[in-house]
């Protein structure tokens, strides 16, 4: 031991370039593996704590010792100076030995304390599997990515269609046996998605109506056409904005909660439990939710549209000085029942889309908390996107039938 002390300060010849650099790095930490090279003979002395705390320094010293080992024939390793060792130290010792074995060097280990043997044996047996070939073709991986995106999209469409089909079947079954419909559950969900949504829907639609009216007045004033604000407000709210805003809000408010509920039931195997009891999860969990939504959305749309007109009317009165009588008279003149029907008839279809997307996404949740968050986001984003697409399709349809 006395000979070995301080040896690292004057490295003997035969170091490779890499050995030199890593050696100097290693010296910044506590020396754990001292080395002395004498011609074709390398003496290593392990000292100190070979534990997790020193693993980082030890790794550098082990790697540089392996590099040094390349230039010698005979290696001695003295383990007597090691105070304690853990898995980290045992593994790095194993890495050292494997490094020498790979270079076909003979190594003699002396002074190994008995209490380390179990751990070193464990380390010796580990990391034996050869890692798989990680080589990848860039072009192929791009195509694989595109293909995956495409197949995911197709699967999504199929899942939604499948859910629609399953829902129709469930409705038919319920029509044959009306007793099997979960009325209590439906009423409970109706309370949540309709009654409890009223305040926030009213608040937001009043504001939207007021903003539309204010903007209209501000810009129409230049042409002296303030009175046409009522036309714009009435038609916009009745046909488009009322139903669209409410549908988007409900997709965010109730669609997300449907997905999260169904998803956590899926995680905790409640859905599977239902199935094994011979109950159809679609009939028990999803049908009442979607029926509640289909009832709720037209009601909320009606309330929202009225609130938007009210908000717009208030702004016309307070901001443009148009008396409520004038506002109402103008509104009666331009709004026909047609506009109202167009708006209202879209609501149940939008509710159906929101409900189906939310249910499909909920049942796609797999095991983890992250997956639940991911599917909830997907549910809201997809539902809002589809609601807007559906609105466009309806616009084309109503234009074609001249309504």
């Amino acid at each position, binding site marked *: 031991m006395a000979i070995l002390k301080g040896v690292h300060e004057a490295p003997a010849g035969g170091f490779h370039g890499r050995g030199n650099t890593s050696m100097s790095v290693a010296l910044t930490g506590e020396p754990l593996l001292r080395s002395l090279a004498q011609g074709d003979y390398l003496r290593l002395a392990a000292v100190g704590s070979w534990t*997790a705390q020193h693993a980082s320094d030890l*790794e550098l010293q082990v790697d540089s010792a392996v590099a040094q080992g390349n230039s010698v024939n005979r290696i001695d390793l003295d383990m007597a100076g090691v105070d304690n060792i853990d898995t980290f130290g045992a*593994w790095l010792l194993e890495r050292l030995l494997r490094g020498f074995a790979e270079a076909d060097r003979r190594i003699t280990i002396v002074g190994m304390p008995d209490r380390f043997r179990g*751990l070193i044996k464990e*380390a010796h047996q*580990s*990391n034996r599997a050869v890692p798989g070939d990680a080589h990848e073709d860039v072009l192929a991986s791009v195509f694989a990515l595109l293909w995956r995106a495409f197949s995911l999209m197709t699967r999504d469409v199929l899942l939604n269609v499948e859910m629609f089909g399953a829902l129709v079947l469930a409705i038919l079954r319920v029509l044959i046996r009306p007793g099997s419909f979960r009325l209590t559950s439906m009423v409970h969900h109706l309370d949540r998605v309709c009654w409890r949504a009223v305040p926030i829907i009213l608040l937001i639609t009043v504001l939207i109506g007021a903003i539309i009216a204010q903007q209209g007045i501000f810009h129409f004033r230049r042409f002296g056409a303030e009175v046409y604000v009522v036309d714009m407000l009435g038609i916009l709210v009745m046909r488009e904005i009322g139903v669209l805003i409410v549908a988007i809000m409900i997709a965010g408010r109730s669609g997300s909660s449907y997905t999260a509920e169904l998803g956590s039931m899926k995680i905790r195997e409640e859905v599977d439990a239902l199935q094994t009891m011979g109950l159809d999860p679609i009939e028990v969990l999803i049908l009442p939710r979607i029926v509640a939504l289909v009832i709720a959305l037209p009601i909320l749309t009606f309330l929202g549209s009225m609130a938007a007109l009210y908000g717009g009317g208030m702004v016309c009165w307070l901001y443009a000085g148009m008396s409520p009588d004038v506002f109402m008279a103008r509104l009666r003149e331009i709004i026909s029942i047609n506009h109202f029907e167009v708006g209202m008839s879209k609501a149940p279809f939008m509710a159906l889309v929101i409900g189906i997307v939310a249910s499909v996404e909920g049942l796609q949740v797999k095991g*983890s908390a*992250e*997956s639940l968050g991911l599917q909830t986001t997907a549910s809201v984003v997809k539902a809002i996107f589809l609601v807007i697409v559906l609105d466009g399709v309806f616009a084309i349809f109503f234009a074609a039938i001249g309504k």
Partner: protein
Amino acid sequence: MLAPINSIDPVISVRDVVVVLNHQAVLDHVSLDVVRGEVLGFVGASGTGKTVLMRTILGLLPKRGGTIEVLGVDLGKAGGEQRRAIERRWGVLFQQGALFSSLTVIQNVQFPMREYLKLSDRLMDEIAITKLEMVGLKPDVRDKYPAELSGGMIKRVALARALALDPEVVFLDEPTSGLDPIGAGDFDELIRTLQQTLGLTVYMVTHDLDSLNEICDRIAVLSGGKVIVTGTMATMLECEHPWVKEYFRGKRARAIGAAQAHA
């Protein structure tokens, strides 16, 4: 640094601990010592507060009174830095595994290393694989998510994570619950092997009579908010407390005893 090995110093020392939950004293002046290098089995009827004591030692539940010392540090008085140093030196296996569901198996095992040690990616991968192999898993589970694992595999990965930093003390909360008898036996053996190779001190909450018999050096029994008896299996069999008598000499225990005598 590691404390010098001394067979008498208690690694965990609980003195007169009182824990009150919902206005009810769940632990009423509990005292318990766990000696370095032993496997202590902690038993008691369901709902008597076995897990409560473990969670109190770990600092997850507040205590009303008493002191808890772990590795010579009074946790009630320890500051943040000192506490973290102790937390680095223990590992916990929760009953349900408590793996991070958004991380893969290998990321779960590497998590404590990443937080506490500055290691190269290569070394972290190698150590994590070593740990996984030590707990009897194949390296090809490395990129699976916890949701894709079976119950037994989850327990093993959780044990690998608990051992990630080579702790001195390991807390196991019902390690064999939910495993089949063969799996539970394997797991017991695994804990025993790891305890011997790594020199661990193990604090094990359990219901499993086999585990108690096979791997526990000492057993402590909790009843009525107090530790009523501690000692070896032989002490338990001689104890005249009705619950202890029923537990260790009841029908199930006799069945096991008979099976062992037969073998």
